[in-house]
C-alpha cells in the first residue's frame, strides 16, 4: 500500500476525474476511484461480461487492492493509434464495440469511444480503461459515439475508401477527424458515409451547443438501450467489412527482393539469437519481422516506417497468436513526439520504456543515404537508448547502397564508408563482436554502450 502523496499521476489521465491513473513508487499501475466511480466498479465487478472479458484477456487484469483503489497489470509497451496500421486500428475498434455490446446487455455503457483506451499484448488488443464503464441510465445514449467516429471510424473509412493512411492525421490531432472534415474527404455513396458522416455533420451544424436540451428531449421521448445496441451492431458490421486500400509500397516484399541470400539471413538470425536475452528488444526497420521473431526477448517492439509492411506483419503475427511482438508504424527519421497537454499526455517513443537490446539491421544505409542522417547523429541517438546494439553496416560496394547512392549527387555521401561508420560507432559503443556477410559487403556488429 502506498499513500496518496507518494503516487505519481499518469500525465494522460486527467480528463476523467472519476478514475485517475497513478503510479506507486514501486511502479505499479493504480487507479483511484471517486465515490461515484467506486459504485460503478462495485456493480461492474460482479457482471458476467466483465468477468468473462477479464478472463479471456480482453480487459486488462485488474484487482481492487483497497476500497476505491485498483491495480492494473502493466502492458509491455505503450503505443498510440497513430502508430498502428489499419489492421490494428480495426481490431481495436472491434474490441471496443464487442465489449460495449456485451456491456449493454448487462446494463453498462462506455462513457467514451477512444482508441487510446486500447493497448496490446503483442498482436492481442487489450482494453485498459476500466474506468470507462459506467451503469447505463435510463434514456441516455452512448456518449462516446462521436469520439468513436472521429478517432476510429473516419480514419478507417479514409483508408478503406480513399487509400489515405490516417496516421499523420491522428498524430496531428489527438481529437481525430471532425465530422465536417470527414464529409469533405469521403465519397458520398459508400457504405456508412451517408449516416455516420454526412447526416452526422448536418445534425451537428444544426444543433450545435444544444447538448443539454437534446438529452432531455431524448429521455422524454423514451430513448432506450435497444437503440444503442442497434447502432453498435451496425457499426460492428461496417467496421468488420472494411479492408485497407493501399498504394504502391517500396518495402512490401522487400526481403524477397533484397540483395542478400538466405544463408546470410540465417547467419543474421544466429547472430541476433546469440546477442543474448533481453527483457524488451526494439527491432528498428523490422520489415517482415524475421529477426523480431529470432531475438531472445520477453517482448519485442517491431518498428517500421511503411504502413503496409506493418499491417502485413500484424496480420501474420495475429495468425500466429503472438503475444510478444508489437508491430508499430514509426518513421525513425521522425519518431513519435510528445503530444497533447504540455506535450506529455502522449509520450515520445523513447520515453515509454527503454529497450535492453536494439536491432538495427539493414537500416543504417537507408537513414544515412536515404534520409541524410550523419553517422554521428545516428550513433548519438542509439547511444541515448542506452542498450546493447546489434547493427548492420552495408559498404559502398553493396548493391542496395549503390542503388541509394545512384539517386544522389556523387559528392553528397563521399564520407559514407565502413571506416567512418566504425569510427562513429566506437565513439559511443564498445564493439564486442563482428561478422562479415555477403562476401564482405556487409558487416554485423554487437556493441555495448560505453560508460
Amino acid at each position, binding site marked *: 500500500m502506498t499513500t496518496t502523496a507518494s503516487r505519481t499521476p499518469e500525465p494522460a489521465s486527467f*480528463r*476523467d*476525474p*472519476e478514475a485517475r491513473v497513478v503510479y506507486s513508487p514501486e511502479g505499479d499501475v493504480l487507479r483511484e476511484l471517486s465515490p461515484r466511480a467506486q459504485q460503478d466498479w462495485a456493480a461492474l465487478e460482479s457482471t458476467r461480461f466483465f468477468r468473462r472479458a477479464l478472463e479471456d484477456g480482453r480487459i486488462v487484469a485488474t484487482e481492487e487492492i483497497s476500497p476505491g483503489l485498483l491495480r492494473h497489470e502493466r502492458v509491455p509497451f505503450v503505443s498510440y493509434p497513430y502508430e498502428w496500421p489499419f489492421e490494428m486500428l480495426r481490431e481495436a475498434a472491434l474490441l471496443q464495440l464487442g465489449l460495449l455490446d456485451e456491456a449493454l446487455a448487462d446494463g453498462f455503457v462506455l*462513457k*467514451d469511444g477512444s482508441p487510446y483506451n486500447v493497448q496490446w499484448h503483442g498482436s492481442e488488443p487489450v482494453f485498459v480503461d476500466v474506468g470507462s464503464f*459506467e451503469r447505463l*441510465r435510463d434514456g*441516455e*445514449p*452512448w*456518449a*462516446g*459515439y*462521436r*469520439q468513436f*467516429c472521429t478517432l476510429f471510424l473516419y480514419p478507417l473509412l479514409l483508408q478503406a475508401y480513399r487509400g489515405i493512411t490516417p496516421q499523420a492525421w491522428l498524430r496531428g490531432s489527438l481529437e481525430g477527424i471532425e*465530422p465536417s472534415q470527414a464529409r469533405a474527404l469521403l465519397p458520398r455513396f459508400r457504405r456508412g458515409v451517408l*449516416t*455516420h458522416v454526412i*447526416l*452526422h*455533420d*448536418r*445534425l*451537428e*451544424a*444544426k*444543433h*450545435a*451547443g*444544444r*447538448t443539454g*436540451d*437534446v*438529452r*432531455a*428531449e*431524448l*429521455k*422524454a*421521448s*423514451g*430513448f*432506450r438501450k*435497444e*437503440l*444503442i*445496441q*442497434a*447502432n453498435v451492431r*451496425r457499426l460492428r458490421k461496417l467496421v468488420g467489412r472494411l479492408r485497407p486500400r493501399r498504394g504502391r509500397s517500396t518495402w512490401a516484399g522487400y526481403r524477397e527482393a533484397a540483395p542478400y541470400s538466405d544463408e546470410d539471413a540465417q547467419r543474421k538470425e544466429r547472430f541476433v539469437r546469440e546477442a543474448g536475452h533481453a527483457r524488451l528488444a526494439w527491432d528498428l526497420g523490422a520489415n517482415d519481422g524475421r529477426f523480431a521473431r529470432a531475438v531472445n526477448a520477453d517482448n519485442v517492439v517491431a518498428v517500421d516506417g511503411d504502413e503496409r509492411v506493418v499491417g502485413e506483419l500484424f496480420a501474420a503475427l495475429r495468425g500466429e497468436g503472438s503475444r510478444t511482438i508489437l508491430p508499430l508504424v514509426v518513421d525513425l527519421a521522425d519518431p513519435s513526439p510528445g503530444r497533447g497537454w504540455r506535450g506529455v499526455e502522449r509520450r515520445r517513443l523513447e520515453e515509454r520504456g527503454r529497450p535492453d537490446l536494439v536491432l538495427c539491421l539493414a537500416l543504417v544505409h537507408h537513414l544515412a543515404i536515404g534520409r541524410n542522417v550523419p553517422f554521428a547523429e545516428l550513433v548519438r541517438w542509439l547511444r541515448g537508448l542506452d542498450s546493447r546494439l546489434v547493427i548492420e553496416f552495408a559498404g559502398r560496394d553493396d548493391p542496395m547502397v549503390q542503388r541509394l547512392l545512384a539517386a544522389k549527387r556523387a559528392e553528397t555521401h563521399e564520407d559514407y564508408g565502413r571506416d567512418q561508420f566504425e569510427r562513429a560507432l566506437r565513439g559511443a559503443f564498445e564493439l564486442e563482436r563482428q561478422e562479415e556477410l555477403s562476401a564482405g559487403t556487409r558487416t554485423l556488429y554487437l556493441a555495448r554502450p560505453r560508460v
Partner: protein
Amino acid sequence: MTPFAYLDPGSGSLLLQIILGGVAAIGVTAKMGWRRLLRTLRIRRDDDDS
C-alpha cells in the same frame, strides 16, 4: 438529470443515435415528433418534461 461523465457527446451526435437505432427508433422518433408538434402549437411549454 445526472450530467454526462466528462465528455461532451455533441448534440448532433446524440440525435443521430436515434436514426441509427433502426426499428427500435420508430417509437422514439414518433414521440419526439409529437412533442415537438405540441410545442409548436403552444399546447406544451419547452421546459415541460413530464
